[in-house]
């Protein structure tokens, strides 16, 4: 699945997007965030306060408890500051 990063999440991880295949036991967004943090210190830094990270599944906001199965594109970003 394609994973996209925005704002300081993107800056800390050091890339705007990548394609990853999480292991089968990664079922929810919370699982995904936990698994990403094992990929390296840049992920650990970006996601250190995972509870504040917002996530969208295929362009729709989703809770951390949401299942990721079926999503083509998952985006991780900080709270929005537009408007």
């Amino acid at each position: 699945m394609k994973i996209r990063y925005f704002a300081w999440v993107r800056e800390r991880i050091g890339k705007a997007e990548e394609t990853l295949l999480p292991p089968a036991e990664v079922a929810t967004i919370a699982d995904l965030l936990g698994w990403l943090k094992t990929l390296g210190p840049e992920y650990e830094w970006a996601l250190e306060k995972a509870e504040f990270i917002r996530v969208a599944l295929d362009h729709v906001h989703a809770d951390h408890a949401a299942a990721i199965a079926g999503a083509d594109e998952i985006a991780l970003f900080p709270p929005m500051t537009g408007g």
Partner: protein
Amino acid sequence: MTTPPIAVRVQAEPFDVAAETEKMTAGRTDIGAVVAFTGLCRAEAGRLSALELEHYPGMAEAEIERTAREACDRWPLMGVTAIHRFGVIRPGEPIVVVITTSSHRVAAFEAAEFLMDFLKTRAPFWKKEVGLDGAKGDWVDAREADDAAAAKWAR
């Protein structure tokens, strides 16, 4: 109930509030109230030379459109236009405009406030400060006051 016309755009270019308003009202004699909210880039007491707005293309448009549709479900609107810019925006320049039309003023006012509260907290845009020397600075922090403003529309 048919959904009134909704126009959503996400663009780098400035926009023309008068022209957008004219598009919504031209030839109509049933609109009694037009509320236009324009959000401008502030210099923050001279500290900033610009804001740089990052966005999530595709989702930004979709989320604003969803918010506009919800506003049309909640209030008897005759039209909604919402335009949000991205890229480098200088102090004094417009960042966002929301225009609502209705037969009466309360609906137009409430819907415009709702749209702005939701746009601030749900539309995927992020502001980065650019200092006077042109150096990129900090990302703007999300304000708790904005979350509280959005929460008051819960139902």
